[in-house]
């Protein structure tokens, strides 16, 4: 059989495996098999590509494949679950830089007289470059190498506009003139501009908005691969890249909806960077009522339904295992225990679910806000562990609040709320939370892990 035909048939099979694999990732029962099918599709695509008769020398390919696989293997097996957001971010970045390099490789070896080919290269290098540096910055923010605070400066929009205009000029030169500067200079200039754009795009965005950024960068890494598919006229790159691009955009959209904000608002507003003065009047809202772990235990012991609401603070305190233990003791004590997880809790989509899964919490007790809000009045105790903005009643009640309209977990409607918190500092959005001052709220100050461990030992003792 003709090799080209064989290769294309294999690419079709790979595409089917990607599609079925992604489909199966949609349900917890089949997800693992889905991931396996998808990886088989990848293996098939890579093996069949190695049959290509235009490949002259295999030693560089083999060396890079082995080196990359070893790095990937160690990164994937050694990473702690709490470091998962930055891991996903940096993998996105590697996908982006790989597509950029493929585009560049084709550019330096190709015949540069076809605008469609050059346009595809332009997009591959641009999207790949933005994905790469954007992901590096996201990695830095998530691992706290650089500050997670939104970073804003005067004239930001102006600088960004200039950058976009410069990129357009380089693009037009690349596609149509090619006389202004040499093709190598054009490529280097484009890569440089794409890198700068990626940095400026993520730098202003605060830590609490990272779920949106990661989902978006995920989408970009797919789109970059898709554009690379147009460069080398390869359909499996286009199919796979488009699938990833679409899935990333949907996740981005889900994250934005969960914050009741538009994507443009997330990207350009530097949320919470400058709390406006209109909110200061609402800062003094009365006394908070602290409670000791011993008293909290007495209330928990009498409770017949408990809802645990985890947030980024639980991840920081590494409290997930202690929380699971407490949940089990509560269940043994006859209480119904559920975990309410807000879509944007933590630093990436699904962050809390992964941590609780790591701590062996069964996934069928993890519920979403719309499942628990209607029955919140029947809940005896809500335990808010390291979450803040996702339980802020201002989102429903205070039209002047920056988070007004955001869907929240309405813990204030339950009979008693325990808030586990380090201190009275405000959340990552930098806004006050009237929940702490409500009459049914009790504050459990201190490290979340220690507090939960104390409760656990009270139950055991």
């Amino acid at each position, binding site marked *: 059989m003709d090799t080209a035909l064989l290769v294309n048939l294999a690419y079709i099979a790979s595409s089917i495996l*990607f*599609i079925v694999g*992604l489909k199966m*990732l949609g*349900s*917890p029962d089949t*997800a693992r098999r889905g*991931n396996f099918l*998808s*990886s088989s599709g*990848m293996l098939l695509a*890579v093996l069949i*590509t190695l049959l290509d008769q235009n*490949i002259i020398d295999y030693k*560089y*390919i083999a060396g*890079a494949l082995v080196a*990359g*696989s070893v790095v990937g293997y160690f990164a*994937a097996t050694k*990473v702690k679950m709490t470091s*998962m957001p930055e*891991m*996903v971010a940096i*993998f996105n970045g*590697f*996908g982006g*830089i*790989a597509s950029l*390099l*493929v585009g*560049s*490789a084709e550019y*330096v*070896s190709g015949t540069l007289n076809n605008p*469609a080919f050059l346009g595809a290269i332009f997009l591959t290098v641009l999207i790949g470059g933005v994905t790469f540096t954007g992901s590096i910055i996201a990695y830095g923010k998530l691992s706290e190498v650089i500050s997670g605070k939104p970073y804003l400066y005067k004239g930001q929009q102006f600088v960004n506009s200039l950058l976009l205009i410069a990129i357009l000029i380089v693009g037009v030169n690349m596609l149509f003139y090619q006389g202004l500067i040499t093709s190598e200079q054009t490529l280097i200039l484009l890569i440089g501009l794409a890198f700068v754009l990626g940095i400026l795009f993520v730098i202003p965005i605060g830590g609490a908005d990272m779920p949106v950024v990661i*989902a978006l960068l*995920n989408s970009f890494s797919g789109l970059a691969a*898709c554009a*690379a598919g147009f*460069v080398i*006229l390869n*359909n*499996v*790159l*286009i199919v796979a890249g*488009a*699938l*990833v691009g*679409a*899935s*990333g955009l*949907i996740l981005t959209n889900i994250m934005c909806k969960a914050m009741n904000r538009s994507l443009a608002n997330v990207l350009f507003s530097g949320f919470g960077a400058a709390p406006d003065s209109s909110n200061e009047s609402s800062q003094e809202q009365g006394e908070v009522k602290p409670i000791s772990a011993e008293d909290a235990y007495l209330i928990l012991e009498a409770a017949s339904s408990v809802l645990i609401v985890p947030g980024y603070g639980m991840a920081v305190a590494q409290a997930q295992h202690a929380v699971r233990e407490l949940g089990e003791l509560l269940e043994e004590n006859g209480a119904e225990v559920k975990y309410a997880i807000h*879509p944007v809790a933590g630093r990436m989509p*699904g962050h809390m*679910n*992964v941590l609780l899964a790591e701590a*062996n919490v*069964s996934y069928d007790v993890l519920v*979403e806000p719309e499942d628990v809000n209607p029955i919140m009045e029947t809940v005896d105790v809500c335990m808010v562990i390291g979450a803040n903005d996702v339980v802020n009643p201002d989102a429903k009640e205070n039209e002047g609040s920056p988070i007004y309209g955001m869907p929240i977990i309405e813990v204030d409607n339950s009979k008693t709320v325990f808030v586990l918190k380090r201190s009275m500092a405000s959340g990552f959005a930098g806004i006050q939370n009237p929940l702490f001052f409500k009459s049914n709220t009790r504050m459990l100050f201190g490290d979340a892990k220690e507090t939960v461990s104390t409760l656990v030992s009270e139950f055991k003792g």
Partner: protein
Amino acid sequence: MESQIILLIFILVLSIFLGVELITKVPSTLHTPLMSGANAISGITLVGAILSSGSSDILTIILGTAAVFFASINVVGGYLVTNRMLGMFKKK
């Protein structure tokens, strides 16, 4: 050439719609594995990288080989870490 581009754009459009249909129904429990699994798929650019790396032009080989390196980190790391995460999702 032109008809080939049109055909590829056709594939692109259908794939995007397919992707949207596939993903819309994923429960939020699985958002992280979905993202990292999808990320591994975006490492498909490895196919293009292999073709560049096997070229005869020295600069193309250098760029292509670097691309193979990064793309294979993305592919191997992405799939393994997704598998590791999914292994933790259990029901009692």
